[in-house]
């Protein structure tokens, strides 16, 4: 099975996003950037499928192609995935941050070229928090989708996916090819070893431009402003539980 894993370069999840004073967006100058953590989980799962780790049979995945759409530095993100065990990379260079619909259209074009059996990706990026690309790609390809995967089993041309839904778990069997988006508890991604980081330097990363795909990526949404949320101010310390209960009764919440 050939697996395509789209990855996004985003602000590192340990960094607190700060809004620019002119309200034009979030300040990313000199901020540490990393692979979107959900995408890292997708890469890890694909590599486990190839290695035959956990419940996966060895060779479940035969080739792992990583694609990123973004600035030149997104090659570093692709390189990280290659060091984790992916086989080759593709960067579709874009200096502007594309909307999920445009990303889904570009990925559809990549799928048509690469013909993977599965697209495995993070459920959302931690910058835009849209949670949309996987579902939109599945729609454009007319493929089945299984979002929020907490467990994936590949057998008999199907992906049996246990999804983390409100109130519990739901299991679906999606015929391949399919789009699967992953949730946090699917696995814990590895740190790439030094030899694998060295090896990854020799792996191929093809670089293309958005224009090469002839896809309409014009924005549909206009960002009018980006602001910081209202800050809560610290309240008071109370001496004991009795005082707390009395305050809560006065506030009308008990």
């Amino acid at each position: 099975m050939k697996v395509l894993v789209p990855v996004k370069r985003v602000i590192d999840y340990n960094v607190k996003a700060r809004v620019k004073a002119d309200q034009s967006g979030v300040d990313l100058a000199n901020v540490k950037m990393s692979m979107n953590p959900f995408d890292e989980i997708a890469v890890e799962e694909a590599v486990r499928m190839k290695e035959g780790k956990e419940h996966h049979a060895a060779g479940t995945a035969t080739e792992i192609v990583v694609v990123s759409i973004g600035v030149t530095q997104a090659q570093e993100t692709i390189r990280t995935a290659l060091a984790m065990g992916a086989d080759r990379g593709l960067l579709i260079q874009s200096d502007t941050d594309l909307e999920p619909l445009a990303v889904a259209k570009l990925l559809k074009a990549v799928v048509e070229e690469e013909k993977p059996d599965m697209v495995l990706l993070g459920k959302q990026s931690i910058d835009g928090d849209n949670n949309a690309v996987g579902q939109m790609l599945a729609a454009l390809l007319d493929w089945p989708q299984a979002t929020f995967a907490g467990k994936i089993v590949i057998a008999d041309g199907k992906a049996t996916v246990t999804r983390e839904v409100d109130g519990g778990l739901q299991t679906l069997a999606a015929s391949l090819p399919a789009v699967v988006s992953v949730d946090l508890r699917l696995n814990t991604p590895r740190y790439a070893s030094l030899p694998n980081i060295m090896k990854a330097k020799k792996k191929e990363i093809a670089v293309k431009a958005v224009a090469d795909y002839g896809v309409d990526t014009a924005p549909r949404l206009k960002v009018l402003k980006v602001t910081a949320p209202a800050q809560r101010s610290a309240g008071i310390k109370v001496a004991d539980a009795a005082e707390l209960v009395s305050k809560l009764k006065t506030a009308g919440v008990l």
Partner: protein
Amino acid sequence: MAVLVIADRDGDAVRDTTHKTVTAALKLSGDVDILVIGQGSKAAADAAAKIAGVRKVLLAESAGLGHQLAEAVAATVVDLAAGYDAILSPATTDGKNFMPRIAAKLDVAPISDIMEVVSADTFVRPIYAGNALETIQSGDAKKIITVRPTSFDAAAEGGSAPVETTAGADGGKAAFVSEEMVKSDRPELGAAKIVVSGGRALGSAEEFLAVMDPLADRLGAAVGASRAAVDAGYAPNDYQVGQTGKVVAPALYIAIGISGAIQHLAGMKDSKIIVAINKDADAPIFQVADYGIVGDYKTVVPELMTALG
């Protein structure tokens, strides 16, 4: 301008996330219809018809729609889309699953998790885990929107809209296999008026249960947990409150042994009153708490139970 709200069905009822989405829809238009999807959903459609301000309720049934599978839901909604300028769903895991699929089929850029309706084409939504809010204007003729339920008041009951049936799509390349829902007599985390949440300080799954359950039962509260407590295996994943779990905004949120990492605060900082119980006086949770008690939960929680009577 007509708006379609996709109901969040709960057996024979609809969850109050539906009522809250109707409130958001009514800010866009006075002509709001509700679509109830499922199999054997007539009672739920009748319940939806009682929401005040609703023009009519559409009921779409088929075997494939019973589990809200994305392909069948999207096909059903796309068939109805011509009659609406906006389609809204609560930002539940179901809504997040099928709404972008619907949007792509209609060549529309979806708008996720709105917190405010500024005008018919302009909305406020959280980005960067709620550390920033973006105000965006949609240039699409049709709007496909998921609504953050905790940001809107529930529409009242008291309506009597007519219920009509509509075609329900079936089939798809993904089939339902099974589900495993957590059974509880307590209110749902997302809808509870009071939430008590435990953190890693509780130290074990047994202790979590022994401390949190009696307090939750006494208060009629839902139980939540920090991601640290979930990762440590003290509480199940669907208890998780935060950026990577559920976003809650109850009238009262009591955080016990939770330090207050950014990712947790993103999930509860819109609660009306926040109480923090933590033995570390410098824990960040106290910076957002209305009332804080610095002390060991092992002594404070039993005292709280006594004070509650």
